Protein backbone atom coordinates (compact mmCIF):
# COMPACT_ATOMS: atom_id res chain seq x y z
CA UNK A 1 0.00 0.00 0.00
CA UNK A 2 1.10 3.53 -0.72
CA UNK A 3 0.75 4.56 2.91
CA UNK A 4 3.93 6.59 3.06
CA UNK A 5 3.06 8.53 -0.07
CA UNK A 6 -0.35 9.35 1.38
CA UNK A 7 1.23 10.43 4.64
CA UNK A 8 3.65 12.70 2.81
CA UNK A 9 0.83 14.18 0.71
CA UNK A 10 -1.24 14.88 3.82
CA UNK A 11 1.77 16.41 5.56
CA UNK A 12 2.39 18.69 2.57
CA UNK A 13 -1.26 19.79 2.43
CA UNK A 14 -1.19 20.35 6.18
CA UNK A 15 1.90 22.53 5.83
CA UNK A 16 0.28 24.53 3.01
CA UNK A 17 -2.75 25.09 5.22
CA UNK A 18 -0.69 26.23 8.19
CA UNK A 19 1.27 28.57 5.92
CA UNK A 20 -1.97 30.03 4.63
CA UNK A 21 -3.27 30.65 8.16
CA UNK A 22 -0.07 32.36 9.25
CA UNK A 23 0.70 34.38 6.12
CA UNK A 24 -2.72 35.49 4.81
CA UNK A 25 -4.36 38.63 6.14
CA UNK A 26 -7.67 38.19 4.33
CA UNK A 27 -10.22 36.55 6.64
CA UNK A 28 -11.82 34.45 3.92
CA UNK A 29 -8.49 33.05 2.73
CA UNK A 30 -7.51 32.17 6.31
CA UNK A 31 -10.81 30.32 6.64
CA UNK A 32 -10.08 28.43 3.41
CA UNK A 33 -6.63 27.43 4.66
CA UNK A 34 -8.12 26.09 7.88
CA UNK A 35 -10.65 24.06 5.91
CA UNK A 36 -7.78 22.59 3.92
CA UNK A 37 -6.14 21.31 7.11
CA UNK A 38 -9.45 19.97 8.43
CA UNK A 39 -10.15 17.92 5.35
CA UNK A 40 -6.61 16.66 4.95
CA UNK A 41 -6.68 14.88 8.26
CA UNK A 42 -8.47 11.66 7.42
CA UNK A 43 -7.85 11.41 3.72
CA UNK A 44 -5.17 8.80 4.24
CA UNK A 45 -7.08 6.33 6.39
CA UNK A 46 -10.40 5.68 4.72
CA UNK A 47 -9.62 1.97 4.39
CA UNK A 48 -11.44 1.04 7.60
CA UNK A 49 -15.02 1.69 8.70
CA UNK A 50 -14.06 3.86 11.68
CA UNK A 51 -11.85 5.99 9.44
CA UNK A 52 -14.65 6.48 6.93
CA UNK A 53 -17.10 7.40 9.67
CA UNK A 54 -14.60 9.82 11.16
CA UNK A 55 -14.03 11.43 7.74
CA UNK A 56 -17.80 11.85 7.30
CA UNK A 57 -18.11 13.47 10.72
CA UNK A 58 -15.30 15.87 9.90
CA UNK A 59 -16.89 16.90 6.60
CA UNK A 60 -20.22 17.54 8.33
CA UNK A 61 -18.76 19.47 11.24
CA UNK A 62 -16.49 21.48 8.94
CA UNK A 63 -19.55 22.58 6.98
CA UNK A 64 -21.23 23.78 10.18
CA UNK A 65 -18.06 25.56 11.16
CA UNK A 66 -17.76 27.39 7.85
CA UNK A 67 -21.35 28.54 8.25
CA UNK A 68 -20.63 30.08 11.62
CA UNK A 69 -17.28 31.47 10.48
CA UNK A 70 -18.72 33.19 7.43
CA UNK A 71 -21.52 34.64 9.56
CA UNK A 72 -18.96 36.17 11.92
CA UNK A 73 -16.88 37.46 8.99
CA UNK A 74 -20.00 38.97 7.43
CA UNK A 75 -20.76 40.70 10.72
CA UNK A 76 -17.27 42.16 10.74
CA UNK A 77 -17.60 43.21 7.11
CA UNK A 78 -20.90 44.99 7.78
CA UNK A 79 -19.40 46.95 10.65
CA UNK A 80 -16.11 47.95 9.06
CA UNK A 81 -16.40 47.26 5.29
CA UNK A 82 -13.29 45.08 5.31
CA UNK A 83 -12.27 41.51 6.09
CA UNK A 84 -8.61 42.39 6.58
CA UNK A 85 -7.56 40.67 9.79
CA UNK A 86 -4.63 43.01 10.46
CA UNK A 87 -7.16 45.83 10.92
CA UNK A 88 -8.93 43.93 13.69
CA UNK A 89 -6.66 45.16 16.44
CA UNK A 90 -8.82 47.23 18.78
CA UNK A 91 -7.65 45.29 21.81
CA UNK A 92 -4.01 44.90 22.74
CA UNK A 93 -1.80 44.28 25.71
Amino acid at each position, binding site marked *: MLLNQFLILSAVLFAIGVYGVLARRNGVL*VLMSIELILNVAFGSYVS*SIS*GEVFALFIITVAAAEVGVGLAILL*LLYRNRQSVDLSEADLMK*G
Partner: protein
Amino acid sequence: MTLGSLAAPLGVLGFVRPHLDWHALAPELTLLGVGALLTCLDIALAERGRAVTSALAGLGLLGVLVPIITLAVAGVASEPRVMFDGAYVVDGYALILKALFLVSGYVVVLLSMNYVAEGDYWENEYYGLVLASLLGMVVMASARDLISIFVALELLSIPAYLLAAWRKRDLRSNEAGLKYFLMGVFASAIMLYGMSLLFGASGSTVLADIAAAAPLDRGAEAVPSAAITVGVIFVIVGFAFKVSAFPFHTWAPDTYEGAPTPITAFLSVASKTAGFVALGSLVFVGFWERDDVYGPALWFLAAASMTAGNLMALRQKNIVRLMAYSGIAQAGFMLAPLAVAGVSTSVADQAVSAVLTYLVIYAAMNLGVFAVIMTVARRTGTGDVASYNGLFRVSPGMAVVMTVFLASLAGVPPAGGWYAKFAVFQALVSADSPAGYVLAGFAAVNAVIAVGYYGKIAARMWFEKPAPELGDAGRIPVPFSLRSALALTVAATLVFGVVPATVTHFTEVSLLATVTGL
Protein backbone atom coordinates in the same frame (compact mmCIF):
# COMPACT_ATOMS: atom_id res chain seq x y z
CA MET B 1 -39.68 -12.64 -0.57
CA THR B 2 -40.25 -13.01 3.15
CA LEU B 3 -39.32 -10.52 5.76
CA GLY B 4 -36.74 -12.92 7.11
CA SER B 5 -34.81 -13.04 3.85
CA LEU B 6 -34.81 -9.24 3.75
CA ALA B 7 -33.33 -9.09 7.21
CA ALA B 8 -30.75 -11.75 6.41
CA PRO B 9 -28.20 -9.40 4.80
CA LEU B 10 -28.14 -7.41 8.01
CA GLY B 11 -27.11 -10.54 9.83
CA VAL B 12 -24.40 -11.13 7.25
CA LEU B 13 -23.07 -7.64 7.89
CA GLY B 14 -22.97 -8.53 11.55
CA PHE B 15 -25.10 -5.64 12.65
CA VAL B 16 -25.91 -5.76 16.33
CA ARG B 17 -28.04 -3.08 17.91
CA PRO B 18 -25.79 -1.31 20.40
CA HIS B 19 -26.77 -1.56 24.02
CA LEU B 20 -28.30 1.70 25.20
CA ASP B 21 -28.31 2.42 28.91
CA TRP B 22 -31.13 4.96 29.10
CA HIS B 23 -30.45 5.79 32.74
CA ALA B 24 -26.80 6.62 31.99
CA LEU B 25 -27.83 8.75 29.00
CA ALA B 26 -30.62 10.53 30.89
CA PRO B 27 -28.63 13.73 31.69
CA GLU B 28 -27.74 14.31 28.03
CA LEU B 29 -31.25 13.51 26.83
CA THR B 30 -32.85 15.78 29.44
CA LEU B 31 -30.54 18.63 28.50
CA LEU B 32 -31.36 18.12 24.83
CA GLY B 33 -35.05 18.14 25.75
CA VAL B 34 -34.76 21.43 27.63
CA GLY B 35 -32.95 23.00 24.66
CA ALA B 36 -35.59 21.75 22.24
CA LEU B 37 -38.40 22.97 24.50
CA LEU B 38 -36.79 26.42 24.62
CA THR B 39 -36.63 26.57 20.82
CA CYS B 40 -40.24 25.39 20.42
CA LEU B 41 -41.44 27.97 22.94
CA ASP B 42 -39.62 30.65 20.98
CA ILE B 43 -41.45 29.65 17.82
CA ALA B 44 -44.82 29.44 19.56
CA LEU B 45 -44.64 32.53 21.77
CA ALA B 46 -42.19 34.75 19.84
CA GLU B 47 -41.63 37.98 21.79
CA ARG B 48 -43.97 36.99 24.62
CA GLY B 49 -41.60 34.15 25.48
CA ARG B 50 -38.79 36.47 26.51
CA ALA B 51 -39.94 36.69 30.12
CA VAL B 52 -39.81 32.95 30.79
CA THR B 53 -36.78 31.97 28.69
CA SER B 54 -34.03 32.61 31.20
CA ALA B 55 -35.96 31.10 34.11
CA LEU B 56 -36.74 28.02 32.05
CA ALA B 57 -33.08 27.62 31.04
CA GLY B 58 -31.96 27.91 34.66
CA LEU B 59 -34.59 25.52 36.00
CA GLY B 60 -33.87 23.12 33.16
CA LEU B 61 -30.20 22.99 34.08
CA LEU B 62 -31.08 22.26 37.70
CA GLY B 63 -33.51 19.61 36.47
CA VAL B 64 -30.72 17.83 34.60
CA LEU B 65 -28.94 17.44 37.95
CA VAL B 66 -31.69 15.01 39.02
CA PRO B 67 -30.63 12.10 36.77
CA ILE B 68 -27.01 12.81 37.73
CA ILE B 69 -27.88 12.41 41.40
CA THR B 70 -29.84 9.22 40.75
CA LEU B 71 -26.86 7.87 38.79
CA ALA B 72 -24.57 8.70 41.69
CA VAL B 73 -26.95 6.96 44.08
CA ALA B 74 -27.04 3.96 41.76
CA GLY B 75 -23.32 3.56 42.38
CA VAL B 76 -21.94 4.52 38.97
CA ALA B 77 -18.68 5.60 40.61
CA SER B 78 -17.81 2.01 41.56
CA GLU B 79 -19.43 0.29 38.55
CA PRO B 80 -18.94 2.42 35.42
CA ARG B 81 -21.61 2.15 32.72
CA VAL B 82 -19.82 1.43 29.46
CA MET B 83 -21.56 1.89 26.11
CA PHE B 84 -20.67 1.58 22.41
CA ASP B 85 -17.63 -0.68 22.91
CA GLY B 86 -16.06 1.67 25.40
CA ALA B 87 -16.59 4.85 23.38
CA TYR B 88 -18.96 6.34 25.94
CA VAL B 89 -18.34 5.78 29.64
CA VAL B 90 -20.33 7.11 32.58
CA ASP B 91 -18.16 6.77 35.69
CA GLY B 92 -17.30 8.81 38.78
CA TYR B 93 -15.01 11.08 36.74
CA ALA B 94 -17.70 11.81 34.17
CA LEU B 95 -20.38 12.33 36.80
CA ILE B 96 -18.59 14.94 38.93
CA LEU B 97 -17.65 16.82 35.76
CA LYS B 98 -21.19 16.77 34.40
CA ALA B 99 -22.43 18.15 37.71
CA LEU B 100 -19.71 20.82 37.57
CA PHE B 101 -20.65 21.85 34.01
CA LEU B 102 -24.35 22.07 34.86
CA VAL B 103 -23.87 24.08 38.04
CA SER B 104 -21.43 26.45 36.28
CA GLY B 105 -23.96 26.72 33.48
CA TYR B 106 -26.66 27.60 35.99
CA VAL B 107 -24.49 30.35 37.49
CA VAL B 108 -23.78 31.68 33.98
CA VAL B 109 -27.54 31.82 33.32
CA LEU B 110 -27.94 33.75 36.58
CA LEU B 111 -25.20 36.16 35.47
CA SER B 112 -26.81 36.57 32.04
CA MET B 113 -30.39 37.36 33.12
CA ASN B 114 -30.08 41.12 33.64
CA TYR B 115 -27.24 41.57 31.17
CA VAL B 116 -29.08 40.06 28.24
CA ALA B 117 -32.48 41.52 29.08
CA GLU B 118 -31.18 45.05 29.64
CA GLY B 119 -28.78 45.02 26.71
CA ASP B 120 -31.68 44.27 24.35
CA TYR B 121 -29.96 41.22 22.85
CA TRP B 122 -31.65 38.19 21.32
CA GLU B 123 -32.62 36.20 24.39
CA ASN B 124 -34.02 32.88 23.33
CA GLU B 125 -31.21 32.11 20.94
CA TYR B 126 -28.71 33.16 23.59
CA TYR B 127 -29.92 30.63 26.14
CA GLY B 128 -30.42 28.02 23.44
CA LEU B 129 -26.78 28.34 22.43
CA VAL B 130 -25.59 28.24 26.05
CA LEU B 131 -27.53 25.00 26.52
CA ALA B 132 -26.14 23.55 23.28
CA SER B 133 -22.61 24.36 24.37
CA LEU B 134 -23.28 22.78 27.77
CA LEU B 135 -24.58 19.65 26.05
CA GLY B 136 -21.25 19.39 24.24
CA MET B 137 -19.44 19.67 27.56
CA VAL B 138 -21.62 17.05 29.25
CA VAL B 139 -20.96 14.69 26.34
CA MET B 140 -17.25 15.47 26.53
CA ALA B 141 -17.14 14.28 30.15
CA SER B 142 -18.14 10.79 29.02
CA ALA B 143 -16.39 10.68 25.64
CA ARG B 144 -13.68 8.04 25.51
CA ASP B 145 -13.30 7.86 21.76
CA LEU B 146 -11.63 10.14 19.22
CA ILE B 147 -14.83 10.67 17.23
CA SER B 148 -16.99 11.48 20.25
CA ILE B 149 -14.30 13.75 21.69
CA PHE B 150 -14.14 15.61 18.37
CA VAL B 151 -17.91 15.94 18.02
CA ALA B 152 -18.27 17.03 21.66
CA LEU B 153 -15.49 19.59 21.21
CA GLU B 154 -17.18 21.11 18.16
CA LEU B 155 -20.61 21.03 19.80
CA LEU B 156 -19.31 23.03 22.73
CA SER B 157 -17.14 25.38 20.64
CA ILE B 158 -19.37 26.40 17.74
CA PRO B 159 -22.12 27.95 19.92
CA ALA B 160 -19.38 29.64 21.99
CA TYR B 161 -17.96 31.36 18.85
CA LEU B 162 -21.38 32.86 18.21
CA LEU B 163 -21.90 33.85 21.83
CA ALA B 164 -18.54 35.66 21.93
CA ALA B 165 -19.70 37.82 19.01
CA TRP B 166 -23.17 38.32 20.49
CA ARG B 167 -23.00 42.12 20.74
CA LYS B 168 -23.50 42.49 17.03
CA ARG B 169 -22.95 46.23 16.63
CA ASP B 170 -19.92 46.38 18.89
CA LEU B 171 -16.64 46.15 16.98
CA ARG B 172 -14.83 44.70 19.98
CA SER B 173 -17.33 41.89 20.27
CA ASN B 174 -17.05 41.15 16.53
CA GLU B 175 -13.32 41.01 16.92
CA ALA B 176 -13.58 38.78 19.99
CA GLY B 177 -15.77 36.31 18.11
CA LEU B 178 -13.57 36.34 15.02
CA LYS B 179 -10.34 35.77 16.93
CA TYR B 180 -11.89 33.03 19.03
CA PHE B 181 -13.34 31.37 15.95
CA LEU B 182 -10.15 31.44 13.87
CA MET B 183 -7.91 30.25 16.69
CA GLY B 184 -10.45 27.64 17.80
CA VAL B 185 -10.93 26.14 14.36
CA PHE B 186 -7.21 26.24 13.64
CA ALA B 187 -6.65 24.38 16.90
CA SER B 188 -9.25 21.73 16.09
CA ALA B 189 -7.67 21.29 12.67
CA ILE B 190 -4.24 20.67 14.21
CA MET B 191 -5.81 18.34 16.77
CA LEU B 192 -7.58 16.40 14.03
CA TYR B 193 -4.36 15.94 12.13
CA GLY B 194 -2.83 14.52 15.29
CA MET B 195 -5.84 12.27 15.80
CA SER B 196 -5.57 10.97 12.25
CA LEU B 197 -1.97 9.96 12.89
CA LEU B 198 -2.91 8.24 16.17
CA PHE B 199 -5.80 6.47 14.49
CA GLY B 200 -3.60 5.38 11.62
CA ALA B 201 -1.00 4.01 13.97
CA SER B 202 -3.36 2.17 16.31
CA GLY B 203 -6.23 1.27 13.95
CA SER B 204 -8.92 2.27 16.41
CA THR B 205 -10.73 5.38 17.56
CA VAL B 206 -11.62 4.05 21.03
CA LEU B 207 -9.15 5.39 23.59
CA ALA B 208 -8.93 2.13 25.53
CA ASP B 209 -8.04 0.24 22.32
CA ILE B 210 -5.52 2.90 21.35
CA ALA B 211 -3.86 2.41 24.74
CA ALA B 212 -3.79 -1.35 24.18
CA ALA B 213 -2.46 -1.12 20.61
CA ALA B 214 1.16 -2.14 20.31
CA PRO B 215 2.43 1.05 18.63
CA LEU B 216 1.64 3.08 21.69
CA ASP B 217 4.04 1.01 23.68
CA ARG B 218 6.89 1.38 21.22
CA GLY B 219 7.54 1.63 17.47
CA ALA B 220 5.27 -0.05 14.93
CA GLU B 221 6.04 -1.81 11.69
CA ALA B 222 3.96 0.01 9.09
CA VAL B 223 4.07 3.50 10.56
CA PRO B 224 7.22 4.80 12.19
CA SER B 225 6.77 5.75 15.81
CA ALA B 226 7.52 9.36 14.90
CA ALA B 227 3.91 9.45 13.68
CA ILE B 228 2.72 8.71 17.19
CA THR B 229 4.99 11.31 18.71
CA VAL B 230 3.71 13.94 16.30
CA GLY B 231 0.14 12.74 16.82
CA VAL B 232 0.31 13.02 20.60
CA ILE B 233 1.98 16.44 20.43
CA PHE B 234 -0.56 17.81 17.93
CA VAL B 235 -3.51 16.58 19.99
CA ILE B 236 -2.02 18.25 23.08
CA VAL B 237 -1.40 21.47 21.13
CA GLY B 238 -5.02 21.43 19.98
CA PHE B 239 -6.28 21.29 23.55
CA ALA B 240 -3.65 23.74 24.78
CA PHE B 241 -5.50 26.33 22.67
CA LYS B 242 -8.77 25.36 24.34
CA VAL B 243 -7.39 25.69 27.88
CA SER B 244 -5.47 28.85 26.82
CA ALA B 245 -2.05 27.57 27.83
CA PHE B 246 1.01 29.65 26.90
CA PRO B 247 2.13 29.99 24.01
CA PHE B 248 -1.33 29.19 22.59
CA HIS B 249 -3.14 31.76 24.72
CA THR B 250 -3.12 34.76 22.35
CA TRP B 251 -6.86 34.68 21.68
CA ALA B 252 -7.89 34.60 25.34
CA PRO B 253 -7.33 38.20 26.54
CA ASP B 254 -8.89 39.75 23.43
CA THR B 255 -11.85 37.37 23.38
CA TYR B 256 -12.46 37.79 27.09
CA GLU B 257 -12.37 41.57 26.83
CA GLY B 258 -14.63 41.83 23.80
CA ALA B 259 -17.18 39.12 24.56
CA PRO B 260 -20.26 39.81 26.70
CA THR B 261 -19.11 39.44 30.33
CA PRO B 262 -21.33 36.43 31.22
CA ILE B 263 -19.90 34.64 28.19
CA THR B 264 -16.39 35.54 29.35
CA ALA B 265 -17.22 33.83 32.64
CA PHE B 266 -18.60 30.87 30.71
CA LEU B 267 -15.49 30.56 28.52
CA SER B 268 -13.05 31.01 31.37
CA VAL B 269 -14.70 28.32 33.48
CA ALA B 270 -16.82 25.83 31.57
CA SER B 271 -15.01 25.87 28.24
CA LYS B 272 -11.62 25.64 29.91
CA THR B 273 -12.82 22.77 32.09
CA ALA B 274 -13.99 20.93 28.97
CA GLY B 275 -10.49 21.26 27.50
CA PHE B 276 -8.99 19.76 30.64
CA VAL B 277 -11.52 16.95 30.67
CA ALA B 278 -10.60 15.91 27.15
CA LEU B 279 -6.91 16.27 27.93
CA GLY B 280 -7.45 14.13 31.04
CA SER B 281 -9.23 11.32 29.24
CA LEU B 282 -6.69 11.38 26.39
CA VAL B 283 -3.65 11.35 28.64
CA PHE B 284 -4.92 8.87 31.20
CA VAL B 285 -6.90 6.52 28.99
CA GLY B 286 -5.49 7.03 25.51
CA PHE B 287 -1.75 7.37 25.72
CA TRP B 288 -0.84 7.08 29.36
CA GLU B 289 2.15 4.87 28.57
CA ARG B 290 3.70 7.41 26.23
CA ASP B 291 4.73 9.74 29.04
CA ASP B 292 8.08 10.13 27.26
CA VAL B 293 6.13 12.25 24.74
CA TYR B 294 3.39 14.02 26.70
CA GLY B 295 5.40 14.41 29.91
CA PRO B 296 7.90 16.98 28.62
CA ALA B 297 5.28 18.68 26.43
CA LEU B 298 2.87 19.21 29.32
CA TRP B 299 5.74 20.10 31.66
CA PHE B 300 6.75 22.93 29.33
CA LEU B 301 3.16 24.12 28.86
CA ALA B 302 2.57 24.12 32.63
CA ALA B 303 5.75 25.97 33.57
CA ALA B 304 5.43 28.49 30.70
CA SER B 305 1.73 29.20 31.29
CA MET B 306 2.19 29.81 35.01
CA THR B 307 5.13 32.15 34.54
CA ALA B 308 4.03 34.02 31.42
CA GLY B 309 0.43 34.34 32.60
CA ASN B 310 1.45 35.82 35.93
CA LEU B 311 4.05 38.19 34.52
CA MET B 312 1.64 39.57 31.93
CA ALA B 313 -1.17 39.85 34.50
CA LEU B 314 1.03 42.14 36.58
CA ARG B 315 0.84 44.96 34.04
CA GLN B 316 -2.85 44.81 33.09
CA LYS B 317 -5.04 47.88 33.52
CA ASN B 318 -8.34 46.22 32.60
CA ILE B 319 -9.83 43.81 35.11
CA VAL B 320 -11.20 41.40 32.49
CA ARG B 321 -7.84 41.17 30.72
CA LEU B 322 -6.22 40.70 34.10
CA MET B 323 -8.56 37.80 34.78
CA ALA B 324 -7.70 36.37 31.35
CA TYR B 325 -4.00 36.29 32.19
CA SER B 326 -4.78 35.03 35.68
CA GLY B 327 -6.76 32.24 33.99
CA ILE B 328 -3.73 31.38 31.86
CA ALA B 329 -1.60 31.12 34.99
CA GLN B 330 -4.24 28.99 36.73
CA ALA B 331 -4.34 26.72 33.67
CA GLY B 332 -0.61 26.21 34.18
CA PHE B 333 -1.29 24.99 37.72
CA MET B 334 -3.91 22.58 36.43
CA LEU B 335 -1.60 21.22 33.72
CA ALA B 336 1.22 20.59 36.19
CA PRO B 337 -0.07 17.32 37.74
CA LEU B 338 -0.73 15.89 34.26
CA ALA B 339 2.93 16.39 33.36
CA VAL B 340 4.13 13.95 36.02
CA ALA B 341 1.19 11.53 35.75
CA GLY B 342 3.14 8.93 33.78
CA VAL B 343 5.39 8.00 36.70
CA SER B 344 3.11 5.33 38.21
CA THR B 345 -0.56 4.42 38.49
CA SER B 346 -0.82 5.78 42.02
CA VAL B 347 0.66 9.12 40.95
CA ALA B 348 -1.70 9.15 37.97
CA ASP B 349 -4.73 8.68 40.23
CA GLN B 350 -3.52 11.45 42.48
CA ALA B 351 -2.96 13.70 39.46
CA VAL B 352 -6.52 13.13 38.20
CA SER B 353 -7.91 13.97 41.65
CA ALA B 354 -5.74 17.09 41.90
CA VAL B 355 -6.88 18.39 38.51
CA LEU B 356 -10.54 17.68 39.27
CA THR B 357 -10.29 19.34 42.69
CA TYR B 358 -8.65 22.37 41.12
CA LEU B 359 -11.32 22.59 38.42
CA VAL B 360 -14.20 22.50 40.93
CA ILE B 361 -12.69 25.13 43.23
CA TYR B 362 -11.55 27.29 40.30
CA ALA B 363 -15.08 27.28 38.88
CA ALA B 364 -16.53 28.60 42.15
CA MET B 365 -14.00 31.38 42.68
CA ASN B 366 -13.70 32.50 39.07
CA LEU B 367 -17.44 32.68 38.47
CA GLY B 368 -17.63 34.67 41.71
CA VAL B 369 -15.08 37.20 40.49
CA PHE B 370 -17.03 37.69 37.28
CA ALA B 371 -20.26 38.16 39.24
CA VAL B 372 -18.58 41.00 41.17
CA ILE B 373 -17.08 42.48 37.97
CA MET B 374 -20.53 42.52 36.37
CA THR B 375 -22.18 44.09 39.41
CA VAL B 376 -19.58 46.85 39.67
CA ALA B 377 -19.62 47.46 35.90
CA ARG B 378 -23.39 48.11 36.13
CA ARG B 379 -22.48 51.28 38.02
CA THR B 380 -19.11 52.25 36.54
CA GLY B 381 -19.61 51.07 32.96
CA THR B 382 -15.91 50.30 32.64
CA GLY B 383 -13.51 47.46 33.30
CA ASP B 384 -10.73 49.72 34.44
CA VAL B 385 -8.84 48.40 37.47
CA ALA B 386 -8.72 51.96 38.82
CA SER B 387 -12.52 52.01 39.04
CA TYR B 388 -12.22 49.59 41.97
CA ASN B 389 -10.53 52.25 44.09
CA GLY B 390 -12.31 52.71 47.40
CA LEU B 391 -15.02 50.16 46.64
CA PHE B 392 -15.19 49.32 50.34
CA ARG B 393 -16.46 52.78 51.23
CA VAL B 394 -19.13 52.72 48.55
CA SER B 395 -20.24 49.09 48.65
CA PRO B 396 -18.70 47.31 51.63
CA GLY B 397 -20.43 44.02 50.85
CA MET B 398 -19.07 43.90 47.31
CA ALA B 399 -15.55 44.68 48.51
CA VAL B 400 -15.65 41.90 51.13
CA VAL B 401 -16.99 39.35 48.65
CA MET B 402 -14.39 40.32 46.03
CA THR B 403 -11.65 40.04 48.64
CA VAL B 404 -12.76 36.48 49.44
CA PHE B 405 -12.52 35.51 45.77
CA LEU B 406 -9.17 37.24 45.26
CA ALA B 407 -7.79 35.55 48.40
CA SER B 408 -9.03 32.24 47.04
CA LEU B 409 -7.40 32.82 43.64
CA ALA B 410 -4.15 33.79 45.36
CA GLY B 411 -4.34 30.69 47.57
CA VAL B 412 -4.82 32.32 50.97
CA PRO B 413 -6.70 30.15 53.48
CA PRO B 414 -9.49 29.77 54.48
CA ALA B 415 -10.85 30.52 50.97
CA GLY B 416 -10.96 27.44 48.72
CA GLY B 417 -8.02 28.20 46.44
CA TRP B 418 -5.39 27.14 48.94
CA TYR B 419 -6.56 23.54 48.88
CA ALA B 420 -6.54 23.46 45.07
CA LYS B 421 -2.90 24.55 45.05
CA PHE B 422 -2.11 22.17 47.90
CA ALA B 423 -3.51 19.23 45.92
CA VAL B 424 -1.35 20.18 42.93
CA PHE B 425 1.80 20.35 45.09
CA GLN B 426 0.89 17.02 46.68
CA ALA B 427 0.61 15.36 43.26
CA LEU B 428 3.87 16.92 42.04
CA VAL B 429 5.81 15.85 45.12
CA SER B 430 4.31 12.34 45.13
CA ALA B 431 5.88 11.79 41.70
CA ASP B 432 9.24 11.93 43.49
CA SER B 433 11.08 12.80 40.27
CA PRO B 434 13.38 15.75 39.44
CA ALA B 435 10.82 17.01 36.90
CA GLY B 436 8.12 17.01 39.58
CA TYR B 437 10.23 18.87 42.13
CA VAL B 438 11.38 21.52 39.64
CA LEU B 439 7.78 22.07 38.53
CA ALA B 440 6.72 22.35 42.17
CA GLY B 441 9.41 25.04 42.53
CA PHE B 442 7.98 26.92 39.54
CA ALA B 443 4.51 26.66 41.04
CA ALA B 444 5.69 27.95 44.43
CA VAL B 445 7.40 31.01 42.92
CA ASN B 446 4.34 31.72 40.78
CA ALA B 447 1.96 31.43 43.71
CA VAL B 448 3.92 34.30 45.28
CA ILE B 449 3.94 36.44 42.10
CA ALA B 450 0.17 35.99 41.81
CA VAL B 451 -0.35 37.51 45.27
CA GLY B 452 1.14 40.68 43.76
CA TYR B 453 -1.67 41.46 41.35
CA TYR B 454 -4.57 39.95 43.30
CA GLY B 455 -3.38 41.82 46.39
CA LYS B 456 -3.11 45.07 44.45
CA ILE B 457 -6.81 44.99 43.56
CA ALA B 458 -7.70 44.20 47.17
CA ALA B 459 -5.52 47.09 48.39
CA ARG B 460 -7.22 49.47 45.92
CA MET B 461 -10.66 48.48 47.19
CA TRP B 462 -9.81 48.89 50.86
CA PHE B 463 -7.32 51.75 51.13
CA GLU B 464 -7.82 54.15 48.20
CA LYS B 465 -10.23 57.05 47.90
CA PRO B 466 -13.42 56.10 45.99
CA ALA B 467 -13.00 56.34 42.22
CA PRO B 468 -15.11 59.01 40.46
CA GLU B 469 -16.77 56.28 38.35
CA LEU B 470 -18.37 54.81 41.47
CA GLY B 471 -20.41 58.01 41.80
CA ASP B 472 -22.10 59.25 44.93
CA ALA B 473 -25.40 57.39 44.71
CA GLY B 474 -24.42 55.14 47.60
CA ARG B 475 -24.29 51.37 47.47
CA ILE B 476 -24.33 49.63 44.13
CA PRO B 477 -27.70 47.91 43.74
CA VAL B 478 -27.44 44.15 43.15
CA PRO B 479 -30.25 42.52 41.16
CA PHE B 480 -31.69 39.30 42.56
CA SER B 481 -30.06 36.98 40.00
CA LEU B 482 -26.58 38.42 40.56
CA ARG B 483 -27.20 38.26 44.32
CA SER B 484 -28.00 34.54 44.05
CA ALA B 485 -24.93 33.91 41.92
CA LEU B 486 -22.73 35.73 44.44
CA ALA B 487 -24.26 33.85 47.39
CA LEU B 488 -23.74 30.49 45.65
CA THR B 489 -20.13 31.15 44.71
CA VAL B 490 -19.10 32.70 48.03
CA ALA B 491 -20.63 29.82 49.96
CA ALA B 492 -18.93 27.25 47.71
CA THR B 493 -15.54 29.01 47.90
CA LEU B 494 -15.61 29.17 51.70
CA VAL B 495 -16.98 25.66 52.25
CA PHE B 496 -14.38 24.13 49.90
CA GLY B 497 -11.65 25.97 51.77
CA VAL B 498 -12.75 25.08 55.30
CA VAL B 499 -13.85 21.51 54.59
CA PRO B 500 -11.91 20.33 51.52
CA ALA B 501 -13.45 16.88 52.00
CA THR B 502 -16.62 18.29 50.39
CA VAL B 503 -14.68 18.35 47.11
CA THR B 504 -12.26 15.47 47.52
CA HIS B 505 -15.11 13.09 48.39
CA PHE B 506 -16.22 13.42 44.76
CA THR B 507 -12.93 13.98 42.99
CA GLU B 508 -11.05 10.91 44.19
CA VAL B 509 -11.62 8.86 41.10
CA SER B 510 -9.42 6.56 39.10
CA LEU B 511 -9.48 6.87 35.35
CA LEU B 512 -6.92 4.17 34.71
CA ALA B 513 -9.25 1.61 36.27
CA THR B 514 -11.41 1.75 33.15
CA VAL B 515 -8.52 0.87 30.84
CA THR B 516 -8.23 -2.81 30.17
CA GLY B 517 -4.98 -4.50 31.01
CA LEU B 518 -3.74 -2.00 33.58
